[in-house]
């Protein structure tokens, strides 16, 4: 294809990597702006002056939809345009389709979705707040993504696939199944019955879209950037299948102690505990693969993904624990859960996405790259996330205790104010971290990404490598 860069010695469409990478960061800024205004409104509720467009509920919808579609969606697409050709040795289906998909994703889904929500057209369903018209385009986009990225894998026969490929295939296909369940079914099936489906999607959005693609990045970047194969291909695959078996069975844990039949609740709670065990397996495999790279590798994309791995472990174990009835009855509905979701989306998913974008970006020969800014970004985000997580977790415990006592409701609102102040301030660090990330991608000399790779991991890592092959010790030579 004409638009592809030859210099990386691959069929990677660098323009699309670049476009989605930049779009991801721009969308990210908009999304966190929604979040920051919403969090500030909990401190000064009259900040929005009563304007419906700045009303807390609508900003809250746009914050999470923006993170899901605008930031993570674009970041995953950027990564896929890099990784799929590398993994398969084939280019994606069509560059033209890529341009359409870019336009569809950003200018038909995310931007209009935001506007419609602010104008008062939305659904009150978690992770499904964009209105139904937008949902129809999301399904279309998911279909087009399947057309764009899946054929290269199947051209080769599935038995040869590296684990990242499995996660990509699984993520794209299962999201296509799960999405309508969360977005359409509750509109047709009322009340408690609809909630059962909604619960499934709340978990599937994270479990079948975000997690597989984030893990695809992690499994890809670790061997590619560290030049060491994955510890065990067998464990990788075991982890993969267990994840896909267990994730969908978790959904009902969002409605523990509800009228939904107890056996379904207990099933979901059990699956949640097993999921924690499986994640330990996955993460052990990943951390063993990272042996020798240190906790804070010099290569920043690698550092981002290795930290994402640790966050993944923490958030999953937390999830398994808080699904258990004794914990759930206390912390459910509280800020504890908001802390959990930030550990998942801002910790695990965002660190993986940042690593994925960074890794692909370094390998665009004409892109700018600023190692120092990236380094700052890492530490600022790390500190910001830690501050936010700690504040929200304490707030959740305070709320839980007051709700279980007979204190007036409002006491719980008053008591968490200091932690809400802390949370809002933590966003300063996070914004600074993302500004640094943006600078990491847009300042510095052109081609500095490759130079940084050379300096941190060594020159041979610049060559296109297939992690699958590195796992089976058939490392490509420089001539590939």
């Amino acid at each position, binding site marked *: 294809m004409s638009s592809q860069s030859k210099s990386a010695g691959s069929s990677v469409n660098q323009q699309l990597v670049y476009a989605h990478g930049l779009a991801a960061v721009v969308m990210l800024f908009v999304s966190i702006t929604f979040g920051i205004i919403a969090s500030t*409104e*909990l401190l000064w*509720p*009259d900040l929005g002056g*009563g304007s*419906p467009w700045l009303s*807390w*509920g609508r900003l*809250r*919808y746009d914050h999470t939809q923006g993170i899901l579609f605008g930031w993570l969606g674009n970041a995953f697409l950027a990564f896929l345009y890099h990784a799929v050709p590398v993994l398969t040795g084939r280019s994606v289906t069509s560059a033209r389709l890529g341009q359409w998909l870019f336009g569809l994703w950003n200018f038909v889904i995310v931007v209009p979705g935001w506007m419609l929500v602010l104008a*008062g057209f939305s659904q*009150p369903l978690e992770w499904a707040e964009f209105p139904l018209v937008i949902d129809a385009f999301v399904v279309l986009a998911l279909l087009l993504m399947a057309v764009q990225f899946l054929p290269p894998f199947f051209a080769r026969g599935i*038995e040869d696939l590296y684990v990242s490929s499995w996660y990509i295939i699984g993520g794209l296909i*299962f999201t296509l*199944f799960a999405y309508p*369940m969360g977005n359409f079914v*509750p*509109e*047709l*099936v*009322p*009340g*408690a*019955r*609809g*909630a*059962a*489906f*909604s619960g*499934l999607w709340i978990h599937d959005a994270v479990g079948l879209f975000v997690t597989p693609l984030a893990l695809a990045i992690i499994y890809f970047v670790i061997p590619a950037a560290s030049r060491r*194969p994955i510890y*065990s*291909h*067998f464990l990788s695959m075991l982890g993969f*299948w267990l994840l*896909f*078996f267990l994730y*969908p*069975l978790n959904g*009902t844990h969002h*409605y523990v*102690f*509800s*009228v*939904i*039949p107890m056996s*379904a609740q207990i*099933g979901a709670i059990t699956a949640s505990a097993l999921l924690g065990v499986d994640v330990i397996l996955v993460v052990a495999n990943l951390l063993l693969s990272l042996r020798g790279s240190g906790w804070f590798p010099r290569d920043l994309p690698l550092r981002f993904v290795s930290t994402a791995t640790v966050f993944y472990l923490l958030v999953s174990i937390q999830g398994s624990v808080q699904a258990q009835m004794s914990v759930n009855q206390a912390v459910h*509905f*509280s800020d504890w*859960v908001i802390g959990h979701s930030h550990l998942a989306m801002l910790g695990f998913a965002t660190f993986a996405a940042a690593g994925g974008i960074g890794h692909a970006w370094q390998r665009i020969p004409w892109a700018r790259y600023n190692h120092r800014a990236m380094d700052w970004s890492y530490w600022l985000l790390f500190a910001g996330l830690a501050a936010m997580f700690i504040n929200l977790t304490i707030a959740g415990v305070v709320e839980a205790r007051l*709700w279980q006592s*007979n*204190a*007036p*409701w*409002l006491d719980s*609102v*008053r008591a968490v104010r200091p932690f809400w102040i802390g949370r809002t301030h933590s966003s300063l660090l996070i914004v600074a971290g993302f500004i640094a990330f943006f600078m990491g991608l847009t300042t510095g000399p052109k081609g500095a990404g490759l130079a940084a790779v050379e300096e941190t991991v060594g020159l041979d890592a610049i060559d296109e490598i297939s992690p699958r092959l590195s796992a089976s*010790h058939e490392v490509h030579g420089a001539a590939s």
Partner: protein
Amino acid sequence: MNEQRPPRALRMSYLVASIAGVGFFAMSVLLLGVWPGQVLEEQTRVMSPEHPLGLSASERRGREIYSREGCAYCHTQQVRYLHSDMERFGAPTLAWETRFDYPHLWGTRRIGPDLARESGSHPADWHFVHFYAPRSVVADSVMPAYSAMFDGSPDRPKQDARDLVAYLETLGRDRELAGSEGEAHARANCNCDKDEMSQMAFHAPELNANPHKTRRTGSPPALVTGSESRGKDLYARNCASCHGPQGRADGPGAAGLHPPPTNLAEHYYRYDRLSIVLTNGIAGTAMPAWRDFSIADRSALATFVRTLYVPQPEPTLPQNLLDLGARVYKENCAQCHGSTGAGDGTAVSELRIAPSNFRTGRPTLGETLRVLRNGIDGTQMAPWGADTNGRLSEAELSAVAYYVRSLLVVQSSD
């Protein structure tokens, strides 16, 4: 680790696993979506009262507003099968109660309280002022203001605000209307005698346990002298928004309330009266109940409220004036306020807001005359003055004012 390409058997297993993967997803939908759905549908069928009300057009519009504003992200509509939830909010939510919820609004976060049992908890004027400017009635609230649903003041709600309040009045309504008969029907058909958790739905102390919900009767605890400084603090945080910092009914929330908050500087109250007011609220008015406050806190509040009263010199009254007052009272006031002034006249059952009890509390003379001249907005207490509809002459007016003030029964403990 040196792994070679997976052996053939393993490769085949991928195919099997792929099929199994799709199977597992389907299974999750069946096990956690479709099957529970069928159980819930069956429960709805057998446990629902025969003619649940459903939603009117206005209530449905209100529901859409609730949806678009993200109310469900601060308020759940689902009382869990847990004692902590039952004590705060009331009976756990049954499947049939959600049968008209397209889509459900259960929510997964509580910044504000659960609203599954909101109907009847507050009157419309409270809701309007609360939506217009939440902090003008609940000083420490973090709820957003929805002033765009009004024409510049809480007294002028647009259709949106009316619809929203209409919708809130449906939350828990069907269960309330089904009454004890409905509960018995549901319980008999629940087929869950052995299931401890399902049984909880029928054993809540109250269907609606909202501590702010007013009630007409209820046994208040005896309040004693409490800590004045604690009372002052509680008053500033919870009461001043309506009653004003000095109790002069000039708080920011006062303007939109009908009846307006009582001017506490102009009223003397016995402890037992304050106990009733703080425990039961004043039904039909925006004055909430405060059952979530401990007895000690309610005592502290009562003590502080009594300090807000500014006593005025009491003139001694000529007997003939009191006689005139008694006559006027008997003819015009007793059917509502009761022959002894206990607020228990024959017409009481027809009144939305109960008439004042003159034996347990007393307004100043100025306040009494003001009420007689102007009536009380939002209640059936009409104006009686000569200039309004000429029902009572100026002399009769002041005579009856003196008379009602003489009805106070001072308790030795006070």
